[in-house]
């Protein structure tokens, strides 16, 4: 099916196995291919540009599609002919940010891109300096350039700035709400205030076994799934046999992380709805899971458990026992708290029918995770692309139809219970044996991709192996990157009082999104989402 599409567009298949398909598509066929794939039900996961001049190819763009039906990732490679590649944003609006990012970072230009303006680089970044090119050193700092601010006041409304420093968002991001009385008539998102240059760092300095610890620090809450995604990508490339037990331990930790992340979010949701006690209850329970993580990995949050080929610490018997006991206790408590909390009408009224995201829009933007499942999009990497031990564990994926804040809330609540159930299963079936396989050698220039289901949705890590124990290119994509464009749509026409809970309802994780490049200064050019809003 997929192969037919690719063949019909006379694409050159570079790699085809049970998980991944990589194909080189000629530029004139790129759009049609993308369109056909999108029609065939593959949504746009992410895109990455690579400076392949050292490999003698020049600049090339990789569009990564997620085909849930076949459980495979399709990577379409297009080589830039004198720095130009046809843009696919007109067909798939989800590709907007990815293409603009490549535009900023590598200086590849996309023909007929609807809004070819800077997305990531700030205004004071000099023109024509492209940080992700190989001739740009990872610790280089270009000089600032002066620029003038171009924006006009909007009459008839209050322009309410939400962020960069706003108590409702716990990270520096910028929403601009156009408010009339209490009603939000329009919203604009400006992002990418935090830049940590992780990709450059990884390519430039780190060895393949150091990068997992870097990847874990992409996110402050769900770092371990990034870690896993990266490790899986490399293992996929090098065809490494990971021991069973290691896979199970990874699963347990992943689910533990999902629980604490969701509990955190539920607590924050209560706090934003002004229900402080609910916040306290939720976090009190969350604390036990943090302690569990500490018990298993030696750290509350950054587990640091993965190496290529397995995990570093074992789960011995008494740890196992303690784990299952605590799980039994907390499961009851969680049920109790939330069944009671959901009886409080004023909370439900604040969430019901608020911040609705339709299924169609969601697909177009390519939202992932609970945000997607909340609006009736049945997607879950754990089920569609089984990794770790999810293949042989059974669990259900909660789906809600309404697409409002309440349904996202409930999705997360049910996922907490599911995760507990998953951990219990994994603990019983925990196979004996070795936990780390260190006999492997790394291939060169293999294109690989690894994906996990983070608490916020799908993590995709794209990588190209390099010489020795280095990677040539590593491009992680956090779920928030796909979910954020949906927020202004949800916000439009709602009351200002609901803005914080709506913004929070995608569980935004901004620094995961902004991992891209080393940049001085905070000022960031407005990335308008008018085309998503259908014009403010």
């Amino acid at each position, binding site marked *: 099916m997929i192969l037919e599409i690719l063949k019909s567009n006379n694409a050159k298949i570079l790699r085809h196995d049970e998980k991944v398909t990589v194909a080189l598509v000629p530029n004139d066929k790129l759009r049609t291919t993308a369109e056909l794939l999108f029609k065939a039900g593959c949504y746009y996961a992410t895109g990455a540009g690579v400076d392949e001049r050292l490999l003698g190819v020049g600049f090339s763009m990789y569009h990564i599609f997620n085909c849930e039906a076949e459980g495979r990732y399709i990577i379409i490679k297009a080589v830039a002919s004198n720095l130009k590649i046809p843009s696919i944003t007109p067909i798939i609006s989800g590709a907007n940010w990815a293409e603009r990012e490549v535009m900023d970072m590598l200086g590849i230009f996309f023909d007929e891109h609807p809004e070819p303006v800077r997305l990531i680089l700030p205004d004071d970044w000099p023109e024509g300096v492209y940080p992700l090119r190989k001739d740009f050193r990872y610790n280089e700092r270009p000089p600032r350039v002066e620029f003038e601010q171009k924006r006009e006041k909007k009459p008839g409304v209050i322009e309410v700035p939400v962020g960069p420093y706003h108590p409702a968002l716990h990270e520096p991001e910028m929403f601009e709400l156009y408010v009339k009385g209490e009603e939000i008539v329009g919203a604009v998102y400006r992002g990418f205030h935090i830049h940590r240059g992780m990709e450059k760092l990884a390519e430039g300095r*780190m060895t393949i*076994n*150091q*990068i997992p*610890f*870097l990847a874990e*620090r992409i996110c402050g809450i769900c770092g371990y799934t990034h870690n896993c995604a990266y490790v899986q990508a490399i293992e996929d490339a090098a065809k490494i046999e990971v021991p069973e037990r290691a896979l199970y331990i990874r699963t347990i930790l992943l689910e533990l992380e999902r629980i604490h992340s969701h509990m955190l979010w539920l607590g924050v949701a209560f706090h934003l709805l002004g229900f402080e*006690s*609910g916040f*306290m*209850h939720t976090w*009190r329970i969350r*604390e036990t899971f943090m*302690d569990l993580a*500490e*018990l298993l990995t*030696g*750290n509350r949050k*950054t587990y*640091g458990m993965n190496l290529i080929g397995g995990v*570093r*610490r074992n789960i011995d018997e008494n740890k196992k026992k303690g784990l299952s006991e605590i799980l039994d206790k907390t499961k009851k408590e969680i049920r*109790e*708290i939330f*069944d*009671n*909390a*959901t*009886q*409080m009408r004023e909370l439900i009224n604040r969430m019901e029918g608020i911040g609705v995201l339709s299924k169609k829009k969601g697909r177009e933007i390519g939202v992932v995770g609970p945000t997607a499942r909340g609006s009736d999009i049945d997607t879950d990497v754990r089920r569609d692309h089984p990794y770790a031990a999810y293949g042989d564990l059974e669990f259900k994926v909660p789906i809600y139809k309404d697409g409002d804040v309440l349904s996202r809330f409930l999705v997360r609540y049910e996922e907490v219970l599911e995760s507990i159930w998953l951990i219990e299963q994994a603990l019983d079936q925990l196979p004996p044996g070795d936990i780390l396989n260190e006999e492997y050698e790394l291939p060169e220039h293999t294109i690989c991709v690894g994906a996990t289901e983070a608490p916020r949705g799908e993590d995709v890590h794209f990588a190209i192996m390099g010489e020795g124990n280095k990677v040539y290119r590593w491009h992680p994509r956090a779920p928030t990157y796909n979910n954020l464009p949906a927020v202004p749509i949800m916000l439009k026409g709602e009351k200002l009082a609901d803005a914080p809970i709506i913004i929070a309802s995608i569980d935004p994780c901004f620094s995961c999104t902004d991992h891209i490049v080393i940049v001085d200064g905070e000022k960031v050019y407005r990335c308008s989402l008018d085309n998503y809003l259908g014009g403010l």
Partner: protein
Amino acid sequence: MGRFKLITKAISIGRVTEKYPFVPLEVPEGFRGKPVIDPEKCIGCTACSNACPPQALQVYDDLERGVRVVHLFIGRCIFCARCQDVCPTEAIKLTKEFELATLSDEDLHQIVELQMVRCEECGKPFDTFRHLLYTAKELQPWEREMMFLCPECKAKKVSEKLIFGKGGGYV
């Protein structure tokens, strides 16, 4: 109704927070805290500095003083315990200490200096004494006699022996 259930629950559970700064906090076994190098055990093999992701551990030779400096800067440490994994002599360990806030920068640095061996030929320091001893076990007898030579001199010597060696040398 649910509201009152929650209230009763809260009352029944009682306080859960601790008077933390005034009472010590328990951490479990295997907690990854502040790493500490045991100067007695360290042999300066540079395994840790190669493994360390954030380059918190750096090893460099101070040639005129003839010492190898193992420099640990905790301000950079991410407490991943890779150094602990790779250390051949278990010289570096992660303690349970986690209250690292300090007013003086010195508290974040640990520096271990190891005496280096000077090359018999050129007299340039090339390796720590301990490392030599540590590796000495695996050496063959013919290598022992030139174990105090720096790699260059060693290579020179071997080639000389190969060429001018009496009795066919070691070939």
